[in-house]
């Protein structure tokens, strides 16, 4: 039961759910949640491959850096959301159609 395929399926489900969250939600923070899910699905794939396919830990390192980058992404993304809210007083994604102001 615990095989590469099961991990891949779980990560695939996560990925698809992340995509649906990104598309269905209109709240920017919720879209960031979807991005986190997608990133985690990718990281899970790396670790699963690292155990089941390759013989080294490069997959672990990669998922470690994915986590690092996800944290940086969340920090900057949320900062942008907050700034956006201060300007527009909403965090509706459809308001974010202009590149300035």
């Amino acid at each position, binding site marked *: 039961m615990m095989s590469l395929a099961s991990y891949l399926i779980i990560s695939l489900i996560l990925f698809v759910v992340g*995509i649906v969250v*990104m*598309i269905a939600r209109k709240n920017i923070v919720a*879209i960031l949640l979807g991005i986190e899910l997608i990133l985690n699905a990718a990281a899970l794939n790396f670790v699963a491959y690292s155990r089941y396919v390759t013989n080294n830990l490069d997959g672990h390192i990669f998922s470690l850096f994915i986590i690092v980058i996800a944290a940086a992404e969340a920090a900057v993304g949320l900062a942008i959301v907050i700034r956006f809210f201060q300007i527009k007083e909403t965090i509706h*994604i*459809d308001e*974010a*159609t202009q590149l300035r102001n």
Partner: protein
Amino acid sequence: MEYTVGSIAPIFLSPVIAFVINAFLGRKLPRQGDWLATLSIFISFIYSARIFGDFVFGNFATDFFIHKTFTWFDLNHAATIFKVDMGVYIDNMTAIMLLMVSGVAFLIHLFSTWYMDHDEKHGRFFVFLPLFTSAMLGLVLSDNLFSLFIFWEIMGFCSYSLIGIYNQKEKAGDASLKAFMTTRVGDVFLLLGIVALWMFLGSVNYVDIYAAIAEGKFAGQTVLGISFATFTALCIFLGAMGKSAQFPLHVWLPDAMMGPTPGSALIHAATMVTAGVWVSLRMYPLMVLGDITWFIAVVGAITAFGAATVATVQTDIKAVLAYSTLSQLGYMIMGVGVGSYNAAFMHLITHACFKACLFLSAGSIIHSVHEQEMPKLGGLRKYLPYTHFAMMACTLAIAGIPFFSGFVSKDRILGDALYYGFMSGQNPLLAIVPILGFAAAGLTAFYMFRMMFLTFYGENRTHDNHGHGHGHKDAHGHEAHGHEIHHEHLDVRQNVPLLILAVFTLGFWFCGTLTGQSFGKVFGAKTEWFKVLVEAPVVEKFVDHKREDFSRVDTREKTHLEHAHYHHQTGYAGPNPDEHKLHSAHTIGAIASIFIAFAGVFLAFLMYIKGSVKPWASKFPGITKTLENKYGFDEFYIDILIKKGLLGLNRGLAWIDMGIYDRYVVDGMAFVNRVLYKSAKWFDNVVVDAIGVDGTGVAVNLFNLVLRIVQSGKIQFYFIMLIMVLASYVWTLNI
């Protein structure tokens, strides 16, 4: 004499460290850290001298070399597809060059501490100067074209900064921009050549390129319809042309006078401009293989002659020197082209010494008199005796007077050129190369002595605001009022660098025998050290080359690659040179060049000291005008290339955009839209109404729904599109 990282790295690293410290802490150091920069160059000099000593006086075989590498980065574990090695490659030529660069740079630094004293840009100047020097040293040390290119670009940036150091002056800014942009043209080609070599060989190490040439890997390879070797050689030489300011990319160098004079000395004498010659020499086997030596020779000859003609009418002392630099660089390139490998490199070294000295002397004059227009100078011999002495020695050298260094090297190039043009059975049109070369030699003697006579002899005109343009004797009775000119005293920082450099203008340093043979032969001797040590790379010996790890002590046999016999080798492409003809060519060339040089000096003497011959400017106003306009290259570039060409292209594109695209495509779309709109209206009126109100409502709603979602221009929509494109990609390609 074992080389590890510790004995090589300080050459390059100590100026870098000085740069870093000066860049960040320079303002807080006493004297803004100029002593630190000077000291760092001195350290480089010490280490370079050690290497030089080992190579010249040591027990190395004459073709011994050190090649140490380390892996810079390796992005591929298994297949070494993207692996970049860095390393050092030291042979005799590198050793000589290192000593020259670090020595001259040290003297220039020392001089600069005097020259830039109390200057507002003092600190900044001493930030860039060591970086510049370190880049040149790194360029000389590097063993591959890639790291060479890196240092090449660092130098480009530094020269940009040094030329434009007085950034409040608009002209300085323009000049720096010009230097940067013009050299960029060449750099693009150099990078292109490097990338082409990389793609072809998988490495840009000198030794790998040599080995590839020896193994005949280039045979039969073509790119864009021309031979691959020709293509890469041409690209690399175009890069060298940009850096060494060869025709037609020479326009930046005269304008580079805007910077402080010691900076000019460093750029024009020791470092930057010689980088192009250096890479030509390093890639000489490739040039030969690519059969572009005739092109190199012609470019060099044209530059040498053209710059010399322009120099005869310049009035700015630094401009004269700048054009003379151009001319001498032309000689070097010409030397490379005519197969005079040894002499071209020798001219590089000798020129570095006397041109640095000339520039420093000019700096000394300018700093003492605060004037650089020659018509406003004159009679400075009494006030600046040391400067006069140094400058006269250098002028003698550059003019090609016997027993001076310039004669030794230039004569040899001219002799080879003579052979190349007339006797080697080449295309007869190439006879233009020696003709232009000899003409330029005469002009060199003329304009250099013109400069000397106008500056140091005759009446002192420094107080006279109305310079008379040409240096004949003006109104009598003007005793020198040079009360603002102080007699120079022997100052360690002002004069001693000049005098040290002046010592090295003597010819016997370069054509003597430092390797133990007889001391007497001054020229023509075949065993002189320079000829023994410097020779064109023999590519065959690099076929099974082994490199060493950077940190490992050099444990190879010191004499493992010994040539049984040295013969005078010109190494140009074609059949073996006829020794007899060559010798006679050299003899003729030596006699001719001595004669021409003295003729030039004599003419200058007649014009500017005796005054018996009026300067010919009034006689040939058209030619003078052309020369004063520098053949109109600047105007050509600005008016034709940039204004007409580039802006014209812009206008054409704009016309296409507005005239065709806007008119037909956009308006056409509007028209189509109108038609659609009308048809939709018709459809609405006729069909939809006929079908019924409810149906219309539903249909329009649905249509709107789809359309609005698709046309929202929202982030999520793009995301959906991304996913869809990905999916379609996967499905269509059926991965």
